């Protein structure tokens, strides 16, 4: 089996796991942490405002404080740090690292150090900008995943509706999540069946042809299935709007959370200016 084929399979499997986890994270037993108790609307608005606040901020220590707050929220909500690390921190580092690190040497400014042997200048400005970039990315990603991990996805959709996001968009969003899972499942099955039939390594053009035909078959099969999913929804009365069983009611905890979010975001904007 060729290495490239393995790469695609591994990515698909990884995606499937991640998507499942993201969509059903709150199913984990005993997940009655702080964030889980909050109203979905409060979480959506609150976490979003924190992300905006930290992006607005110009000072590194303010951003890091918000990050610390996010980590604290995670721990209070039984979202394991290991999960955060593997899902968010490492990924963001892998992407932002190669971009941020050269900036340390390339950003103009007074050199405070020179790398031995190569002589590249390390500037204060460079360090600061790299740190800012990294801090912002990590904080935002952490906050986003906290939202998704502690809220049932149909509540997220409902909260979006409450905030006047157009119904077509929200419906398509929900259906797309379902189809992604369907597609990944189908892809996984196809790879498994193919693996049991392929012997030996494939040439480049063969691999490409197989990838394309896999994509095509996947599309066809999922197309059929997804049409049926929509019919099944209509069969049970779906007319376009999103309904959830739980009432969105503001408890005292929710109001306190609103106050806390507003205070934290407000302080971040003011202090980071």
């Amino acid at each position: 089996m060729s290495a490239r084929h393995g790469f695609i399979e591994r990515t698909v499997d990884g995606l499937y796991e991640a998507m499942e986890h993201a969509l059903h994270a709150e199913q984990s037993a005993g997940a009655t942490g702080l964030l889980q108790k909050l109203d979905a609307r409060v979480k959506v608005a609150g976490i979003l405002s924190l992300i905006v606040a930290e992006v607005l901020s110009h000072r590194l220590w303010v951003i890091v404080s918000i990050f610390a707050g996010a980590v604290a929220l995670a721990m209070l909500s039984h979202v394991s740090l290991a999960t955060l690390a593997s899902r968010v921190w490492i990924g963001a580092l892998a992407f932002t690292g190669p971009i941020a690190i050269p900036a340390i040497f390339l950003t103009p400014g007074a050199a405070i150090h020179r790398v031995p042997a190569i002589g590249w200048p390390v500037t204060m400005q460079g360090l600061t900008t790299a740190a800012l970039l990294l801090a912002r990315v990590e904080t935002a990603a952490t906050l986003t995943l906290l939202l998704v991990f502690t809220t049932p996805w149909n509540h997220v959709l409902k909260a979006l509706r409450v905030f006047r996001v157009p119904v077509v968009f929200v419906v398509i969003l929900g259906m797309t999540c379902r189809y992604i899972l369907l597609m990944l499942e189908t892809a996984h099955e196809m790879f498994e069946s193919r693996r049991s039939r392929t012997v030996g390594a494939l040439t480049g053009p063969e691999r490409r042809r197989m990838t394309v035909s896999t994509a095509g078959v996947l599309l066809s099969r999922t197309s059929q299935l997804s049409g049926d999913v929509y019919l099944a929804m209509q069969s049970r009365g779906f007319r376009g709007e999103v309904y959830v069983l739980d009432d969105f009611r503001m408890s005292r905890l929710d109001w306190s959370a609103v106050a806390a979010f507003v205070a934290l975001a407000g302080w971040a904007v003011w202090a980071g200016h």
Partner: protein
Amino acid sequence: MHIPDGYLSPATCAVMYTSAAPFWYVALHRVRDALHTRLVPRLSLFAAFSFVIMMFNLPLPGGTTGHAVGIGIATVVLGPWAAMLAISVAIVIQALFFGDGGVTAIGANCFNMAIVGALVSYAVYRLLAGRSPIESPRRVMAAGLAGYAAINVSALLAAVEFGIQPALYHTASGVPLYCPYGLGVAIPAMMLGHLTVAGFAEFFVSAGVVAFLQKSDPSLLGEAGLRRVAVSQARPLWATLGVLMILTPLGILAAGSAWGEWSARDYSNPAVRQQIAASTFHQAPPAQAPAGLERLSSLWTAPFASYAPPYVRSAAFGYLLSAMFGAGLVTLASAGVSKFAR
């Protein structure tokens, strides 16, 4: 080329959201009328497909990663407006569930990949595919090239958004607050990878899937009912627009200012006065700028004064940039007008 949070200043993010909003609005209206039809699940299907495609990150030369978007195939099947929505949905899901692409950058990412991507892809596809039959190889090539063009334009836009950050947003001591690389680095870094690896991947996915579907399930292609844009009138317009945009740097090479566009200051500049005279049948221009011109010319300082944004060092490139933004604004306006005229 998903832009994460923190790379673009809040001002840039806000501008990108505002730029994306009218297109989303039009797209949503067009799709909403078809809410009870097959368009909605098909749209979600391609959103899902695009999502899966975009998660395959390919390492690009230059240190970034890139990926195919699936914009080519989405545009062929869904038409530009539904494709715009489909890719936008995929981008939103990636931002929310995977932290791939920032939440504040959703506007920018959607504008680059979904909106402009869909329009470029559609224009190129219609231009190249013409009226050839659904099963013809010409359509395959057209789809592939459409995807390639779209992904590179998206990358260019992203590069520009990155590249203008350090000049515009930095502290007093010169620390770039957001993306630390100027246009001189951002553009080559992004374009190198996308003109090659990522562009090829997109070409390959778009062309390959279209070819496959031609044989296995042609019903997914060429469904005129799903596309409501009048094609035949639009094609020559798009072509003209594209050609004009590319030729604009030549305008700089043309000697002196364009006729009639002399500013109030030009009237006191001897070199320009000679040009004015030469282009007006050797009649001497007035000794001073007309009073009305003086007054009005100070009223509005255009953001892109003289078509050269201050942070762009190459005049030709500045010209091209302005042309692109100008074309974008024109498209926006015409979309708005067509909406109201309906």
